[in-house]
């Protein structure tokens, strides 16, 4: 029976619900803008990672290597774009 029960998926589902609830705190309680954004960004990225790994089965096929390479590359490019833009448009103007 144990091997039939999708424990990983159920735990993942519970965890993603928890993340959603935590994100909602930012809306319902009165906190500073930066704290709220930090909570939202953190929960959002953990949520995205959870979805990719647990529910989209990123690491469960032979393509594991190319899927993760693609994801890391995408994250790298996104970070470069965001922090580069902040540097160009805000920090060093």
């Amino acid at each position, binding site marked *: 029976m144990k091997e039939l029960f999708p424990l990983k998926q159920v735990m993942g589902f519970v965890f993603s619900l928890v993340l959603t609830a935590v994100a909602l705190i930012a809306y319902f309680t009165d906190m500073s803008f930066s704290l709220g954004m930090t909570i939202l960004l953190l929960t959002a990225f953990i949520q995205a990672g959870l979805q990719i790994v647990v529910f989209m089965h990123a690491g469960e096929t032979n393509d594991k290597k190319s899927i993760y390479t693609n994801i890391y590359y995408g994250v790298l490019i996104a970070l470069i774009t965001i922090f*580069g833009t902040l540097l160009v448009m805000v920090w*060093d103007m």
Partner: protein
Amino acid sequence: MDFFNRFAVPHPSFLIYGAMVSIAIAMIAVVVGITYFKKWGYLWREWLTTVDHKRIGIMYLIVALLMLFRGGVDAIMMRYQLSMPDNTFLDSQHYNEVFTTHGIVMILFMAMPFITFFFNYLIPLQIGARDVAFPRLNALSFWLFFMGAMLFNMSFVVGGSPDSGWTSYFPLAGNEFSTSVGTNYYMIAIQIAGMGTLMTGINFITTILKMRAPGMKLMKMPMFTWSAFIANVIVVFAFPVLTVLLAMGTMDRLFGTNFFTTDNGGMDMLWANLFWVWGHPEVYILILPAFGLYSEIISTFARRNLYGYKSMVASMVVISIFSFLVWAHHFFTMGQGPLTNSIFSITTMAIAVPTGVKIFNWLFTLWKGKIVFTTPMLYSILFIPLFTLGGVTGVMLAMSAADYQYHNTMFLVAHFHNVIIPGVVYAMIAGLTFYWPKMFGFMLNEKLGKWTAWLLSVGFVLAFIPMYITGLDGQARRMYTYSESTGFSTLNMVSFIGAAIMAVAFALLVYNIYYSIRYASRDIGSDPWDARSLEWATHTPVPEYNFAIIPEVASTEAFWDSKKKGHELFKGKIEKIHMPNNSPLPFIMSCIFFVFGFSMVFSIWPVAIIALIGILACLTYRSFEKDHGRYISVEEIEETEAKLRGAKK
């Protein structure tokens, strides 16, 4: 009548009316011609609904050549306007429209489809596959791109062309300064074409990763496939930025949002910033497949395997990351601090290093090679010094302090034409000449081809080298005229003469195609160049299923090994082949996209909403459609093979 006034061109001239009449005549001629020769059914069955990567590739090629003509006419008009001081051939508004459309047409609607043509035609053949991973998505890519290109070109005669530069910087491109619908066309037409490009990127990454012939490890792929793979990775990561950017720009123009306005918290320079976050990777999307083509051509005609395969791959991977690290060098003078400028200066200079590695690899491939000077090889040999010149001036421009002198001058214009023309355009023509026999079963005339290459190069040098000088002397780009006292007139006249010679060269290319169709020998076999990679291992013309038996690969040059070293490519026996069905859906959906785009440009909301529902209906239909493809039977394959083998030596 009020309703129809909006479709009038706001700034008409004799030239635009002439173009309207000629477009109308051409369209009538095409429709009458197809009807007269009873080709509507053929057109619909074999082309409009096709999912065959080879046919889709050829349609990309046709669009690219048409757009090359259109962009070329723009270029000649600009050079003629500037050839004499105080020329009145074009007025300032008209000149603005011409340089804007020249840039967009040449980059997005000429160079992009040209490389996509090579992706489509070559990649499945080079990796020994029967089609791309998602054939129907591929058809949708093409038709979206096509409709975007047509929508953009329509701006010329309906509603007015965009006039704020191919970069379309805000606030100039905002509603306040660009009052005509021209910039709406820019936003929406490029959006539709860009969606097609993004799908192409995903499609070819999947194709290359999943559909290689047995034995073809990643490090055994032909160099063009590698370059295409890297380029498509860049497409997938760069084009979403453009998509978001154009969506924001559209909302600013149509719905009164304030992303790029100068007040209400808008950030006008954010457009420039994000535009180049996409724009710089875009130039590498264009140049990398060109490098791949040169690698194929140089190793074929130096009769040697490519020198430094691993370093070629490594340098492209490094370029793919660095291409995302240099974008701010397009606006060193925008006002950011010295820290930012220094960072981007250094990354820009650093990207010259992997490019240099590639140049040296080609030189070492040529070293001690038995060089055969065919037309494609001639282009490749001309490319190396001319492109290096453009690369060196690029490093000059990369120095942020010195850039204050070069910025927005003809020096910059000379630089990027100097890398794009010998880099991309030469590669496209060289590749076209090289693969022409594979596609159409006869070779282009070598003598005419070499004349074209030399004329093009002489014209290129005359047209663009003078711009370096006038640019350093202070001639600004995008200036529609100048006075005689500036002293720019002689060099600009030289430039015009160069441009005219280039036009003659392109006319000669067209004549070469005509001449070769009439006179070239059809008895050339399937490997006329004695080439090295898998695309030459199948028949000419390539059968629908590409390879009757999937080849087995053991090295980077499987076909060469099979010719010279007794490697057996086609093991096993013929089995029935599973192929995708044709579908009219991509074409229909893209037509609806065209209607949607057009009504968005002119803010005709009811039509836009109906079109949007139509698009969703097409998507829904596709979701529930059951299409398992079809099988080609063994007898049919054997019949085709027997017929094609007759022409083989």
